[in-house]
């Protein structure tokens, strides 16, 4: 009865007393018991639900501090860390009657695009257990895709929500930088990190965003911009000018390109205008992102110096060590100007590039990833694997714009989900959600989400 029900549907059932919170939570705990050993989605399952409460479950990536619930960021360094405080995102969820069902696997410290850098083993792709679910929010994506949670919270620095959403066949929303508080989110690259929802429906994404967005007095980078009622505004049939650009199709798999062209036609049919634009090639964003992210990582991981948290620096995995070293190098005296400062300048150019584009169009449509989910272990062949897999997500992340990835069909050869994305103007989540909703209503994402759930019966 529950299988595949969206978060908002479950809420309605609970509200109408068709089902109790207990039944819902027990249902998901049963499913976790059944499928988690196979998929490795959850690192910690929360069984502390108090029966008197009316709550709806949600999965949370393991880099959000949850008071009293172990939080590891998938690193052995924090293997035994139980936060004494609640992140703003989870606090707002709890205050809105959400129950934290468990903490999901991720790349250690969010360093990666496959969850393979997790010190607790990779999360398998629910569509093909020999493949990655993507990353770094791979656990959250797989949790939703295999219905081990009706929805999940992920975090993105550059691609970490959109890419696993794309590979696992769910919706992933990366809000504008500053839209959602980072307080209590274990920092990866502070100037880019962004929490966001991963869901089965556009409605759920809008619903969750409304709860977690908005000014937080504990995060100085959150803005006071008003939080619109995303859910209510979904139903307005807005017409948009949608930009497309050849720069985002270079090296993209043919089947993914086909899906992209197919959607372009549907959008035109729906009365939207497609406009060709030019954007800086995404490859520049890789260099900028690599430098800025590594620099901030080296700084943010400095606190794990072995004095607190139990485990010392020898517990860092090789990916973290590589990033710390590169980041330390680019910030070193004499190199700062050549690397970090120059990267910041190019970042400004990339922001300007998006500003220019958004003068012409309301949003930009592009593939989310150049290819569908890779096999486990393949990332070792590429030293900058994450950057390559996230190449189409990085420019938007660097510019701080909002973006959403949604499934759009399956590859014919391997039956793997294809993800497309919409990038919108800063703080215009309302618009990208609105168009995604229109696409969902028109195409049902070509049935991807429903097909995925069929593999995981109760």
């Amino acid at each position, binding site marked *: 009865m529950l299988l595949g029900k969206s978060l908002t549907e479950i809420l309605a059932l609970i509200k109408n007393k068709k089902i109790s919170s207990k039944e819902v939570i027990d249902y998901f705990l049963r499913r976790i018991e059944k499928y988690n050993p196979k998929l490795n989605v959850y690192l910690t399952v929360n069984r502390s639900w108090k029966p008197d409460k009316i709550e709806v479950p949600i999965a949370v990536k393991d880099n959000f501090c949850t008071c009293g619930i172990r939080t590891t960021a998938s690193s052995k360094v924090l293997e035994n860390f139980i936060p004494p405080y609640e992140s703003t995102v989870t606090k707002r969820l709890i205050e809105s009657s959400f129950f934290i069902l468990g903490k999901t696997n991720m790349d250690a410290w969010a360093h990666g695009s496959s969850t393979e850098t997790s010190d607790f083993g990779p999360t398998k792709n629910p569509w093909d257990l020999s493949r990655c679910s993507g990353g770094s929010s791979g656990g959250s994506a797989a949790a939703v895709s295999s219905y081990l949670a009706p929805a999940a919270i992920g975090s993105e620095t550059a691609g970490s929500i959109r890419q696993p959403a794309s590979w696992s066949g769910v919706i992933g929303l990366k809000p504008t930088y500053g839209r959602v508080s980072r*307080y209590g989110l274990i920092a990866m690259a502070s100037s880019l990190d962004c929490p966001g929802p991963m869901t089965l429906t556009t409605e759920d994404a809008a619903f969750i965003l409304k709860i977690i967005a908005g000014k937080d007095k504990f995060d100085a*980078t959150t803005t006071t911009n008003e939080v619109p009622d995303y859910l209510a505004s979904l139903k307005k049939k807005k017409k948009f000018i949608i930009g497309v650009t050849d720069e985002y199709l270079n090296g993209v798999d043919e089947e993914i390109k086909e899906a992209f062209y197919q959607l372009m036609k549907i959008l035109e049919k729906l009365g939207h205008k497609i406009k060709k634009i030019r954007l800086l090639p995404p490859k520049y964003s890789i260099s900028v992102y690599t430098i800025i992210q590594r620099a901030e990582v080296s700084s943010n991981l400095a606190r794990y110096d072995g004095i607190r948290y139990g485990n010392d620096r020898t517990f860092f995995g090789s990916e973290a060590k590589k990033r710390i070293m590169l980041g330390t190098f680019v910030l070193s005296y004499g190199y700062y100007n050549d690397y970090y400062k120059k990267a910041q300048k190019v970042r400004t150019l990339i922001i300007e590039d998006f500003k220019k584009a958004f003068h012409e169009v309301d949003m930009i449509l592009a593939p989310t990833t150049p290819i569908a989910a890779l096999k486990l272990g393949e990332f070792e062949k590429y030293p900058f694997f994450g950057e390559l897999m996230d190449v189409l997500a990085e420019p938007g992340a660097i510019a701080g714009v909002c973006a959403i990835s949604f499934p759009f069909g399956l590859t014919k050869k391997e039956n793997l989900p294809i993800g497309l994305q919409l990038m919108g103007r800063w703080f215009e989540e309302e618009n990208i959600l609105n168009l995604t909703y229109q696409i969902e209503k028109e195409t049902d994402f070509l049935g991807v989400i429903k097909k995925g759930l069929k593999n995981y019966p109760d």
Partner: protein
Amino acid sequence: MSDDYKPVIGLEIHIELKTSSKMFCQCSSFYFGKSPNTQVCPVCLGLPGALPVPNKKAIDWTILIGKALNCRINSFSKFDRKHYFYPDLPKGYQISQYDEPIAVNGQIEIIKKDKSNNVFSKKIFRIRRIHLEEDTGKLIHSKNGTLIDFNRSGVPLVEIVTEPDFDNSNDVKQFLEELQVIIRYLGVSDADMEKGTMRMEPNISILNKKSKVKSQKLPGYKVEVKNINSFRFVKKAIDYEIKRQIEILKEGITPLQETRGFDEKKGVTYSQRKKEEASDYRYFPEPDIPPLVFSKEYINSIKVPELPLQKVERYVSSFGIRYEEAFILTRDKNLADYFENIDKKFKTKISNLNLKIKNPSQIIANYLVNKKISSQLSADEFINKLIENLKPKEVDKNLLEEVINKVLKDNQKAVLDYKKGKTNAIMFLVGQVMKEMKGKVEARMVKEEIERRINQ
């Protein structure tokens, strides 16, 4: 000191602000005497995911200090991360300011008095920059190991850096005293060296004037001295360093660039850490805090109160009191306020009572400075006591006559001397009478009486 060697001294001063909350979190910044690790939260403990939110008051107060020290306030400023590993630094970096400090290019003026000819002169010492940062935790070393107390972690700390304008320890001491008084006037810190709310590190080097490098303006090394907790020790440490470095230079050796500690018991400095290479703090802009932008209007809205030396000038020019008393009265703002309050009330009172008193302000100043009447009294009590003290004393006329008779009789020689024209002799007689009367009579009155009697 040999004329060939000129000390070059610059100062780094840290002032802990007494804002009620810490620099980047809501914790109380009053940690003194509190049990360890009771004034802490995720932010000042640097827990995973915690974020800093800057304290507006601390920023305003830094602007205020900048303005009081005649600095230019930068309209754009930002915080930066300064990385180094130390157990008392929970994030592995300190949030500080690197290339865009809040205030730059200021100066402090001190008044030097030449004792031999009573001439005053001004001396100006330049301030290079003033920036805001967070304090660290404290290590407590014990037999069983080292413990960390994070109560102090995140308390706002202002760093004031001077230009290397000093060449002797007296000027340094006077500068620091002046700075301390200014900071206390602003009400932003207790600036207490012993409690550690004011800390200072002098950088000392010696310029060899005979050096072959003609264009040399600054020596090619510097020695920083740490752990000094009183002005007296600052002077001692600097004097010791100057002597030590000159001795090394005389042997033709350049002293090592290093950080030295000060041993207050022995009065010597000792090597702590060699600093041959500049440390690399890997500064970069703090991404968790948006840049600070101050409009002209905003900077103007932060008002500097009357500062101690301005008060001295006003006391001298409008109250007509001497520089010495004016200086002492204005060292403590409470005392200065007390003085002005008494002065106002006293003047009203004497005009109501129709008393004629010459330069009443100077009299009050004298009484306050010499502590003849306690400044713990209320202003009204103080005035009553003062008036009592100034009233002509009731004299027992009979007793006075008796005493004068006795003194004149016992000191015939002095009387004769006076009559011969040695007018000074009368002061001896007055003194004798005063002694007998135990001071309960005015000298002027005694003098008149003796003159009258001798000239009869």
